[in-house]
């Protein structure tokens, strides 16, 4: 697993894509933060709300090639014939993407300390909630991207499919609201509750208020575990073609 993490991280840091992703994140973070600072607030919560959009944009770009490319380059044969467990390969890829993402979190934390230095008051519980929520959210989106990347050989297809699915999972109750508004059909409460239950964004928001609800934590960890497991299954199934 260590070998895989090392290779993937190196690939991120030596590819233009890796730097493009970091630049985009830094750019948006900078803009959003400046916007809020002008209004005299050093609270990051709203900034990070907006950053979810940036996450949504960059995560499929990070995950699309993880497994799709192995199949296209036929390097999967290398991994499959090596004395390594498939779950270790999948976990290695997952952690590589997550660790790469941590560069962004480091950036956020550094920003925060800079403002602390300039005398801003910071609610540490809210701050921790923000970071933790964003970490869980990104990890969940990464596993979804990883899973989709295992399904196809084509990076572009993987990216587009990941956009579609993560868009739905992130904002499904908003879509439902829009849907019922336009069609003026009242959605059954059971359905709307289910949608609320799944909606990633709602769950993320509760973190940002400094509320560490165990159900939310369990929810994200389950999503991560389920998608990792399914990814392993898909990679394994490929051998049974």
């Amino acid at each position, binding site marked *: 697993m*260590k*070998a*895989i993490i*090392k*290779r993937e991280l*190196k*690939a991120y840091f*030596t*590819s233009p894509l890796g730097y493009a992703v970091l630049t985009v994140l830094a750019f948006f973070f900078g803009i959003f933060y400046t916007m809020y600072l002008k209004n005299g607030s050093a609270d990051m919560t709203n900034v990070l709300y907006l950053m979810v959009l940036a996450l949504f944009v960059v995560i499929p770009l990070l995950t699309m090639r993880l497994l799709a490319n192995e199949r296209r*380059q*036929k*390097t*999967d*044969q*290398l*991994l*499959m*014939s*090596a*004395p*390594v*467990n498939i779950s270790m390969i999948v976990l290695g890829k997952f952690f590589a993407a997550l660790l790469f993402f941590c560069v962004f979190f480091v950036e956020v934390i550094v920003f925060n300390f800079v403002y602390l230095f300039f005398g801003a008051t910071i609610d540490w519980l809210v701050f921790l909630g923000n970071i933790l929520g964003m970490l869980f959210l990104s990890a969940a989106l990464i596993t979804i991207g990883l899973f989709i990347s295992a399904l196809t050989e084509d990076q572009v297809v993987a990216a587009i499919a990941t956009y579609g699915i993560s868009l739905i999972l992130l904002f499904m109750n908003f879509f439902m609201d829009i849907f019922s508004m336009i069609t003026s059909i009242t959605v059954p409460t059971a359905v709307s509750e289910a949608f609320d239950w799944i909606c990633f964004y709602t769950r993320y928001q509760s973190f940002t208020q400094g509320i560490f609800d165990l159900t939310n934590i369990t929810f994200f960890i389950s999503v991560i575990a389920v998608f990792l497991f399914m990814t392993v299954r898909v990679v394994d199934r490929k*051998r*049974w*073609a």
Partner: protein
Amino acid sequence: MIEVKNLTKKYGSHLAVDDISFSVNDGEILGFLGPNGAGKSTTMNILTGCLSATAGSTTIDGFDVLTDPFEAKRKLGYLPEQPPLYPDMTVREYLGFIYDLKKVKMPKGPHIAEICRLVKIQEVYHRLIKYLSKGYKQRVGIAQALIGNPRVLILDEPTVGLDPKQIIEIRNLIRMLGKTHTVILSSHILPEVQAVCDRVVVINKGRIIADDTPDHLSANLSDDHSLSLILEADKKKAMDAIQALSGVKSVSYVRSHGENANEFVVDPVVGYDIRKPLFELMRDKDWAVLQLRSNQMSLEDIFLRLTDDTTDTAVLERSLKRRKEQNEQEGAQE
């Protein structure tokens, strides 16, 4: 060392490998010979755990690839048909990654350096793989298989796409590796297999049609080949009479050699030796034989013949098996 038992692989309804069994002894170099689509790569992928079998089992040094993959794969080095390279890595980074991936215990620097020296890739060691020539890519692929010094090497068409000089170098390398490793290599080229391998398994349409030493194989098959015959006889009569012999597949007229002398080519049915019946016919008819010569069959011809769609593979297989048994008996008697 390697045991393949009743291996079958179906892709959907397409039967790619059909109930094949063979074994490879410790220290042997086995050639896997067959035309495109014969099922060579499929078999090798199953052997290395990249692909699952529909039925049958494969074991490496006693470890089943499916149920005990970890132990089996630790003994394997595999060069797939397309070398599994990461274009954006340098050779150095790549081999280092393989070393880490296989969790090799030997000292890293010296081990990798030794392999680079062996496959002669020192001069590209620091270059990006995507800029290497085909030959060097192939060598890096072989280097990758050698990392960890596995006892079994499985090489899928290791010399494909190389220039003649490199082909010879790689063949020599494989022969040398064969002294300390068990090797299976696949190829379309019979001379290659003959030059390198101790034993050949010929596979066609997923079935094994021969399993023998290269020398036996070519000797056995050349016994069957066509005869060139110049007779002092009437063309029509001679052709009819020869055609009527049992064991003759076809007779064709080549050209006239002056007064009443005609040249024919006689093709026997696979597995039949028609020289004697032919001689008897000439004697009975009192035709003068001006020339009787076996048409030397090149190795390519043999291969084409073995894998030809129109030859009756069942007859061919039987004849090969019979001859192999004969050879073995003779060997035992000596």
